[in-house]
């Protein structure tokens, strides 16, 4: 009976705390910086779990969900493993130079981060070594570059151009529209690629998988599947690139995989 009451109280407290945390995001560690239009924001990460959201403002906002400040006794000392300096009090280092803003981890065990960036900024994200966490990006409206090794890459409601490569992390991309500003290209070695496009998107598609299959429900006009290339298999294995236009053609969208399937769908 007594015990129950205590648990109840505890739950109530947790609930209150959660409510507070939600209502006052200021409680989480936060860093803000103005970004000029079309500036390149470069994120290089090892371990952090990143979610990047576009917003209409002109600020870069870094929110650490579970940031732990260095211990008190480290005061006046500098960390040796992490040469990047935590100048944001979120465990991330932010440096501006040569027209770029470079964001790097500045602590040994970074946790979850929500990074909010202007939707028109150019963004480049790179997983620096094997074993990092996944990458999720939402709502970007400009050139977006992602270099992944093992991280799963999810790009939701982006317009492109997107340039993504991965070795073994699956890639999922949902285009809100397909930008005609430049070509997009997605490549992977051993990870599935799943792309959805608006039915009206105009594109020139170049699709190839060396040993996998390509599945689609898009209304493609395949250009090179004529008598000349009756067999799509090349000398030395591997299948040829399928070139097809979508809605009369537009910017180039290249998708290539080595050993996995490619899924292309209508939204």
């Amino acid at each position: 009976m007594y015990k129950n009451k205590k648990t109840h109280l505890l739950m109530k407290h947790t609930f209150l705390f959660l409510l507070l945390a939600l209502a006052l995001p200021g409680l989480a560690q936060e860093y803000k910086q103005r970004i000029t239009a079309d500036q390149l924001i470069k994120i290089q990460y090892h371990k952090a779990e990143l979610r990047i959201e576009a917003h209409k403002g002109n600020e870069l906002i870094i929110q650490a969900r579970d940031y732990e400040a260095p211990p008190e006794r480290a005061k006046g000392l500098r960390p040796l493993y992490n040469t990047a300096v935590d100048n944001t009090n979120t465990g991330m280092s932010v440096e501006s130079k040569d027209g770029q803003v470079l964001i790097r981890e500045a602590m040994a065990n970074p946790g979850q981060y929500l990074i909010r960036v202007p939707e028109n900024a150019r963004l480049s994200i790179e997983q620096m070594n094997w074993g990092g966490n996944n990458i999720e990006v939402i709502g970007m409206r400009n050139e977006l570059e992602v270099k992944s090794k093992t991280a799963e890459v999810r790009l939701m409601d982006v317009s492109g151009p997107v340039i993504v490569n991965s070795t073994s992390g699956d890639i999922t991309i949902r285009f809100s529209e397909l930008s005609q500003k430049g070509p997009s290209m997605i490549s992977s070695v051993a990870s599935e690629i799943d792309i959805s496009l608006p039915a009206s998107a105009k594109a020139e598609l170049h699709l190839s998988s060396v040993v996998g299959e390509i599945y689609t429900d898009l209304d493609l006009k395949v250009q090179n599947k004529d008598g000349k290339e009756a067999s799509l298999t090349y000398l030395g294995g591997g299948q040829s690139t399928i070139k097809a236009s979508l809605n009369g053609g537009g910017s180039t969208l290249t998708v290539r995989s080595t050993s996995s399937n490619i899924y292309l769908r209508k939204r």
Partner: protein
Amino acid sequence: MRNWDNVRELLERYYEGETTVAEEQQLRQLLQEPALPPDLQAEARLLHWPLAERQIQSPLSAEALMAPLALPAAEPKVRLLWGWAWQVAAAVSLLVVGFALGRGGAGAVPAEEQPTATELTALRQELSELKGLLQAGATTGQRLQAVTVAATTPQADAELLMALIHTLHFDENVNVRLAAVEALMNYQQHPQVRRALIHSLGIQTDPNVQLALIHGLTRLGEKEAVPQLQKMLQDEELQQVVRQQVNESISLLI
């Protein structure tokens, strides 16, 4: 009679790294005299070696080296003002012209729409901008765009090919390098391009780019690639999927 002690003193300073270039020239000259004292004869032989080395000359003449550079189109001064936007516009318009030309070649466009001389001059100018895009610090998207356009350019010159080759070897983005492989495959008739594709096998570490190169070279039936492929097999870090393809390609090419 020459005072050989002066030479010996010069020699001593030479070994201490204290002589000037002029003194070293003088020293080498003195040591070539026929009546050398015995103790200086070995020194003479030792200091003689660079003279032969200096005779080595570039097999490429000044003209040969200048030829790819001699593009009359002076770069417009507005570049600094407009930056990349201007160049991308140029590259895009090249895409349009290139597309038109491609169509022309395929016979889809009537003869009167074939490019005129002025169009060709414009094309040439745009071509040089394209190279600029590949060589300077453009964004990844711009570089990918440039490579994509370069793949379909009807008249690639040596400089553009060189820029593509450099992109293939050293661009920091895997996708741009992959696109460069595809682009270069369109210029397979140039021995320089085939050499570069083979050479790049030794540079690339990304499995996707490695596979693209191997597929390309196998498709070309490029036997010259075999030694390089065999070398790849010795790399313990080579990914399994690449290793398989290398083995298969070697057996096909031999």
